[in-house]
């Protein structure tokens, strides 16, 4: 946890995470994917990008992940104030993407190993304990449930310890109870980082977004979210009202 590096969220004061910025039109070949749009994610905040399938949410996220080589963006994107995003992004996808032949500890430390640095197993165990899997560190992914596997993926994301975390519908394949638990856990463990969370679930956006952006065929709309802390309770009036409002927007804007 050297000075100037992005350490755990508790040390968030050490180095401020960057905000994200994108403006322009994205195409793959001749096909329009989205745009023109202006997108901004606030530094150190949880931004939900809510929209139906096929409006280019994932493409936008993939640009920030550095996975957009197939995409032609007529415009600019990157860290706000021109910060480079290389090596400061972690990605968590809908699939857990765990290696079936590695145990949980090895899976969580995969990043260090493929970069050729020494894996910190002690930290991996601490993080696995933090997501409630301390009893399973030597198990393989196949021995776990879908929810548990997504917890491992979260631990792996935390292990990467990046200031920007990109979540590409990571909870959408989980059942309602497991999903709510994962939302709580993710909100707690990722606090202080710049989170871009792509989702198609208005309920999820209402629970988690400090900032909620609704993306439809007509562009991106910033929906004011309550200034309350996240995760918001799934059954509070505030959350349910917001969920309804977001749902209506999704139905109307096309």
């Amino acid at each position, binding site marked *: 946890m050297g000075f100037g590096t992005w350490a755990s969220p508790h040390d968030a004061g050490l180095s401020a995470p960057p905000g994200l910025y994108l403006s322009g039109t994205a195409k793959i070949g001749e096909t329009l994917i989205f745009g023109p749009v202006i997108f901004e994610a606030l530094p150190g905040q949880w931004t939900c990008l809510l929209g139906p399938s096929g409006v280019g949410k994932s493409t936008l996220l993939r640009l920030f*992940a*550095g*996975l957009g080589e197939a995409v032609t963006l007529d415009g600019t994107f990157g860290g706000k104030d021109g910060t480079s995003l290389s*090596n400061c*992004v*972690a*990605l968590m*996808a809908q*699939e857990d*993407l765990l*290696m*079936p*032949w590695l145990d949980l500890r090895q899976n969580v430390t*995969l*990043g260090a*190993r*493929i*970069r*050729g640095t020494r894996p910190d197993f002690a930290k991996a165990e601490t993080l696995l304990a933090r997501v409630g899997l301390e009893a399973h560190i030597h198990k*393989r992914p*196949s021995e776990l449930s879908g929810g548990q596997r997504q917890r491992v993926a979260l631990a792996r994301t935390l292990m*990467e310890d990046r200031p920007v975390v990109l979540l590409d519908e990571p909870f959408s394949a989980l059942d309602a109870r497991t999903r709510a638990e994962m939302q709580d856990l993710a909100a707690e463990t990722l606090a202080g980082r710049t989170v871009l969370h792509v989702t198609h679930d208005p309920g999820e956006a209402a629970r988690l977004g400090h900032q909620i952006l609704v993306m439809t065929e007509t562009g991106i709309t910033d929906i004011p979210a309550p200034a309350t802390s996240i995760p918001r309770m799934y059954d509070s009036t505030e959350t349910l009202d917001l969920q309804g409002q977001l749902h209506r927007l999704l139905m109307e804007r096309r």
Partner: protein
Amino acid sequence: MNRLKHITALILMFLILWQSLVTFGDLPAFLLPPPSKVAQTLWHSRALLAEHAIVTGLEVLLGLVLGASIGAVTAVWLTASQLARHFVRPLLVFSQTIPVFALAPLLTLWLGYGLLSKVAMALLIIFFPVTSAFFDALMRTPAGWMEQARVMGGSYWRVMWLIRIPAALPGFASGLRLAAVYAPIGAIIGEWVGASKGLGYLMLLANGRAKIDLMFAALIVLAVFTLILHVVVDKGCQKLTRNHT
């Protein structure tokens, strides 16, 4: 245990069929010797059979190890180098239009009557299935894993070693299973074309001297050897891929 019973029953049925063919078909012993006679020869000529079996076994094992290793390295090379994919891969596919058997006389001419030409035959015959199966698997690393590795900033060869190769092991294993069955064929063909030792050589020799019982005995030894090789390789492959589901 049940499997053992099945196999024993199968062998017994085969023996009964064989014996009744000899007895009721009224076949002369120089065409089809009775199983009892073959069993006798198996026992009496055990030293001779063992001597030749060891040679064939060595050829097969060397061919298998070399063919699988060279095949694996080639597959990784093809995966890593686009240039190799463009130029070497078509060559590999084209090489399969030449039956390996047709090369046997040439290999004997070039590499001599000894071990080397047979190892080369076994190697050549298994090289393609191993390379092809492993290469296909290497090219099919799930896109999500590769993307995760890129976001993590992994180096090319570390990603190859820690993700792509382990992920492709089931493909390598299926190539290896085929190879274990093909390798003895290569060695035997090599021995037929020109050799002074080995089960294939012994079979030709016995055939020429109308010792059909010895030929059958050699055939049985070869079959048992191939079966054992298959079982061992299969177990090894299962171990290699046991954590892939």
